[in-house]
């Protein structure tokens, strides 16, 4: 992470790690990038009430010895100002099995640097309290609603019905 002005990005999981977390039993993830037709996007909007802005969607089949365990989908929604990237695991029957935030980005209007934060850990003894840097990542203020992820997942469930029949 490099120094940025105003935008803070916390990276929680890369895609392969998130796949293992959400489908620990899977032995194979088959990439199935979707390119939705206009008719499919209209149908997703009709079913979920949420507009499918992008025609493309990153989707993987999670399999165990060839058997479909579910779908792993990477999606983006707008938080308060910036995109939040998350992954959803959907069962073949259309139930949400889990959600993990992959990258959380927000604008805080202050300079926050990830590297200095990280370096604080080098050479600290366990008996001493670790001091997590001068640059603050944790913010306490107005609570940010997660409703955009909730509606995003609703949209993905409709997308599954429209475009991901097993």
């Amino acid at each position, binding site marked *: 992470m490099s120094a940025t002005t105003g935008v803070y990005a916390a990276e929680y999981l890369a895609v392969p790690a998130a796949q293992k977390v959400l489908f620990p039993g899977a032995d194979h993830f088959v990439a199935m990038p979707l390119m939705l037709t206009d008719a499919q996007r209209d149908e997703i909007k009709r079913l979920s009430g949420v507009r499918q802005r992008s025609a493309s969607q990153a989707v993987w089949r999670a399999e165990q010895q060839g058997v479909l365990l579910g779908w792993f989908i990477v999606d983006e929604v707008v938080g308060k100002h910036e995109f939040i990237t998350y992954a959803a695991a959907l069962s073949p029957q259309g139930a949400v099995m889990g959600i993990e935030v992959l990258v959380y980005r927000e604008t805080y209007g202050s300079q926050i640097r990830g590297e200095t934060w990280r370096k604080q850990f080098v050479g600290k003894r366990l008996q001493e309290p670790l001091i*997590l840097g001068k640059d603050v990542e944790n913010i306490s*203020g107005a*609570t940010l609603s*997660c409703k955009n992820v909730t509606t995003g997942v609703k949209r993905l469930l409709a997308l599954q019905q429209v475009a991901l029949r097993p």
Partner: protein
Amino acid sequence: MMPKSDAVPLRRMRPLLGTFVEIGLVERPAGTHCAERTFAAAYAAIAKVHDALSFHDPHSELTRLNASKGQPIRMSVHALRVLRLARAMTAATGGLFNCTVGGAMIARGRLPDHGGDSVLPVGDADDIEISATHACLRRPVRITVDGIAKGYAVDVAVSTLRAQGVESGWINAGGDVRAFGELVLPVLCVGQNGNAVRVELYDCSVASSEAGARADAGHDGEIIDMHSQQPVSGRWSVLSHHAWRADALTKVAALAGPAMRERLLSNLGGRCVVAEDVDSVRASAA
């Protein structure tokens, strides 16, 4: 013993409690699967508290209590504990924190009406009777623990992490933050107009509330003064050891007024680090 050079905290974030909940572990538990089990246990603990105490969920334990028409309702250990804490805080603050304002919040359209008897807009601590296994409402009040449950969920998750062998870490539930173990966690308490106070949490919690016209439209950011029946506006951040207490005391900070605030919070085990009442904006570093 020196930590490995790659001893970067392990973090996860999930949408829960209506916000984003980050859990950070300073030391990586042995093996990836162990870490995932640890995260899963902590998130499950948070979800359990949320499910039990949601006012919005028509099937939660709290909703059953609110619809009970004075009958005793069997409740889980966590639900009873939160009710005890909320009742005690209601009594200790003379109703500045008041967990019986559900009726008023329904009337204002801020909380859903799940039916039941005619509703009192507000009650007092004596309206809640709690035994070892049951709770009972003496009058037709509606209990809401929204002002305390998020913090409590953080505390329960910290206990869960410790029970899993995690010595140091933190949980940030949409700005209700608790750090535990050998860790100093800086947190920026953001006020309005760009004001901010930086605090360092060491075995401590901080919570913030924003209320009024400028509150996040996605949240039910309303705090009502029961004497004037009017909502107040502003932002308040409070430090305390436990997250439930910091969470509850933000409402006390909002309603206490500048003359009483510091002493009242000190008596109740909290310290106000941001106090911005909108009519006369003030931010003070502790």
